[in-house]
């Protein structure tokens, strides 16, 4: 089985988070009462006409720039004709011949580039709701803007597919065009997969649909790879078909084969003029682009934090921004520790991390990190203060007593160390006879006396000096 090479290309639908729909001014937001975000354009009432939303164009260009695409200067919408009850015009306005973005790529961590053939804009369809033997149509989603990102068949393993999707998701979230939630359908992947032996031509591909999470996608691809390899080993032919992933059985099953493939009769949408995209428009979009996740990650790594920490910090756009701000003003390592430690622990769900709502400002956080970095408070106090800040908000100074921040002078430390050495004769003897551990007892005496505020390393150094002198 392992002698077969894995070849896959992805078609990724990403729902854009624009205020209004792609062809009318209805709200594009998710979760409203059925058929309340609707107008004659959404329901395809006779005589209604689509008007292309400029914001959608800007978002699509943003996605293209973030994935190294060339932006088309002339772009046009086309009609894709097919009949389905959730598609009220019996055609979807999409792009076929002149998509907005062409020829980009996404770079994997290995340095391998997965090429992007093109990105096109289109409208989403409505939603069918099956209830009590009846089928209802909710047109709220009809006309919500989508982009479809179509990769070349450059993906050579399940792992590469997973990394590609994750990178794409992260990029789209960072540039703010979509929340990319596979479970909610704001990101949907169709995978074209085939297998073949090295040196032989590409195999016949199957298209896999209905994978509602990254883990389902991985399972589906593993299953499908195995299925195709086994079929070939058994002397069977792979047929070109569309297959759906079945979550229950964790298998893929045939939906329709090539003979059933529809003729969409694409033709230029006469209601929407060809759009000329000016240099100024592209520049304005480019100027509004934030740093991309890979760039942020490299930046964070340069602060000396670990690969894992950097990766986790860029996972959520707001956290990445928060961290980038703090790290630019204070100790980047301590800041990373606190965010990935106690702050992360205070947020149970993905949503909370994504929203990253804190009761204190980034500057309050910077103040806290500074106190710790400059050793004005110890780790314990910092932990306690952070908990107070998470709960009640405000700056760290609100939760610090004079005692908390009272510094221990060098002379005091020196004096306490002498006392400690004098009071722990046995420990001194043990240490001198080679028991390193014994030093802890002497150290503990000083730390207790200073309520933990003395610098442990300094104290240890001092004690050693006193004993060995």
């Amino acid at each position: 089985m392992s002698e077969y090479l894995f070849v896959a290309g992805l078609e990724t639908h990403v729902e854009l988070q624009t205020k209004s729909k792609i062809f009318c001014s209805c709200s594009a937001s998710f979760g409203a009462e059925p058929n309340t975000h609707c107008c004659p354009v959404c329901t395809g009432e006779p005589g209604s006409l689509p008007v292309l939303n400029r914001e959608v164009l800007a978002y699509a260009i943003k996605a293209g720039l973030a994935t190294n695409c060339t932006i088309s200067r002339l772009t046009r919408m086309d009609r894709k004709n097919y009949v389905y009850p959730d598609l009220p015009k019996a055609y979807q306005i999409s792009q076929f011949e002149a998509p907005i973005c062409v020829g980009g790529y996404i770079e994997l961590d290995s340095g391998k580039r997965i090429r992007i053939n093109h990105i096109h804009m289109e409208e989403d369809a409505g939603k069918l709701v099956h209830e009590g033997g009846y089928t209802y149509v909710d047109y709220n989603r009809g006309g919500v803007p989508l982009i479809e990102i179509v990769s070349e068949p450059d993906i050579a393993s399940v792992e590469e597919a997973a990394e590609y999707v994750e990178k794409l998701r992260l990029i789209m979230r960072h540039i703010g065009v979509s929340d990319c939630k596979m479970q909610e359908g704001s990101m949907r992947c169709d995978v074209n997969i085939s297998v073949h032996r090295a040196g032989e031509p590409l195999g016949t591909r199957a298209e896999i649909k209905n994978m509602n999470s990254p883990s389902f996608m991985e399972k589906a691809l593993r299953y499908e790879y195995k299925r195709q390899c086994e079929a070939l080993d058994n002397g069977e032919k792979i047929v070109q078909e569309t297959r759906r992933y079945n979550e229950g059985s964790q298998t893929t099953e045939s939906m329709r084969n090539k003979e059933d493939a529809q003729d969409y009769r694409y033709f230029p949408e006469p209601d929407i003029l060809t759009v000329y995209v000016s240099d100024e428009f592209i520049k304005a979009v480019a100027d509004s682009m934030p740093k991309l996740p890979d760039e942020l990650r490299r930046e964070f790594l340069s602060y000396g934090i670990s690969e894992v920490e950097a990766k986790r910090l860029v996972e959520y756009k707001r956290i990445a921004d928060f961290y980038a701000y703090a790290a630019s003003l204070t100790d980047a390592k301590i800041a990373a520790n606190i965010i990935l430690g106690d702050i992360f622990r205070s947020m149970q769900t993905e949503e909370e991390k994504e929203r990253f709502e804190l009761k204190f400002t980034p500057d309050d956080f910077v103040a806290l990190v500074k106190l710790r970095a400059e050793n004005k408070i110890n780790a314990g106090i910092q932990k306690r203060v952070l908990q107070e800040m998470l709960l009640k908000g405000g700056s760290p100074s609100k939760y610090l007593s004079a005692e908390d921040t009272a510094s221990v002078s060098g002379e005091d430390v020196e004096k306490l160390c002498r006392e400690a050495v004098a009071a722990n004769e046995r420990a001194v003897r043990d240490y001198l006879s080679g028991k390193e551990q014994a030093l802890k007892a002497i150290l503990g005496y000083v730390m207790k006396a200073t309520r933990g505020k003395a610098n442990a390393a300094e104290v240890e150094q001092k004690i050693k000096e006193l004993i060995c002198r």
Partner: protein
Amino acid sequence: MPGKIKKYSEMLRSKSISSVELTTAYLDEIERSNGKYNAFVSVDGDRALEYAKKADELIARGEGGALTGIPYGVKANICEKGVVTDCCSKILTGYRPTYDAAVIEKLNAALAVPLGKNNMDEFAMGSSTETSAHGAALNPVNTAYVPGGSSGGGAAAVRAGLATFALGSDTGGSIRQPAAFTGTVGLKPTYGAVSRYGLIAYGSSLDQIGPIAASVSDAAAVYDAISGWDKRDMTSSPLSRSASDKLTGNVKNLRIGYLKEYFEGIDPEVKQTVESAFGFYEKEGAVLKEVSLPALKEALPAYYIIACAEASSNLGRYDGIRYGYRATDYDSIDEMIKKTRSLGFGKEVKRRIMLGTYVLSAGYFDAYYKKALRVRESVAAAMNELFGAVDVLIAPVSPTTAFPLNYTSANIIETYMADFCTVPVNIAGVPAVSIPAGESSAGLPVGMQLIGAKFTEDVILNAAYAFENSFPVKTDMGVTI
């Protein structure tokens, strides 16, 4: 000629008549003679009188415009909120739009008085108004003949004096040809001059709304009221110019083109009548030029391919799910849709849907649709070039006078071919006005069209106005106040 609209408007302002009285006169006339012509398929007298009352109030305050208080008809493919707008198709039975078309918004704001819906060929597909689900409309000039189509109901209403003017739509001649057949004035504006928002689409890249009226100045007044850019129609344009204020009748040094291909293969009587107009213009000081456009006749097949392709897609939405007619007795949604469409569409509509589906299909797209687009581009380019040399082209509107009843269904290809005079204008997106040029020996009106460069409605209407001053449009039927 001052035209009916201007005359009525002056009477309304001088209080020699009220809009309620005027509207009542039209409603009475419809009551009396619509049965003869089937020009209106629905009339709402209460609504009309409500508008008329408000119009009188507006006028009493010294406000309002050229169309305030003027009763008119609306083609059954132009949406009015809450008013059945069924395109004279069974499949849209009882369909009441939830919104007003842009042109209706404008006329409502002006408090013009809507009388009802005018008959038409089903989905504007036809040139005789015989494919209407509500039965054929008849030509008031001679009821043994059709009033043309597809806006035949509106043209019949205006000719019979049942409406001051009518809003029609023109995809391949559907305003101009009925105007020619009934001896009225019909203007097909430049593509983009009038918003299509709320016009139920046939061929989206060709459709335009325009007036059918009893005089050139009436058509100009309506054009001025309904034209202009609309943000809800991306194909609409801000370049339209007002026309009413340019009607001087002066055509001195106007360059008028005689496009010889237009006069090949047409009825000798029609040819002679239209040609005689050139003599008039020459006498008035215009400059005549003979020009040629060899690709003219290629516009016809290109038109049928493009219009049917767009129609096959535009009409896909009529599936019985959301509005209009739904078939009964079905076991699945697919069967319901199939049955609804099989029983809901008429023969001519089905023919065009199939033709359009075919030309867009994989394997045929390049040979038909793409080629048709290329032809369209070359005809449009040639037409544009012509308008460097001339200001106005004068041409016949139809190679014959009105068809007898029941002629079209037995002569489908021939009546398709008869569109060759009108479709080049739609293919090129330019404006044209159809006016009566005279009569045939059988007493049927002969129309001629004046074609201009894009957004020169003012130029063609002024040229038409000059002719009309010497050869007035007949307004001898129906309401004559």
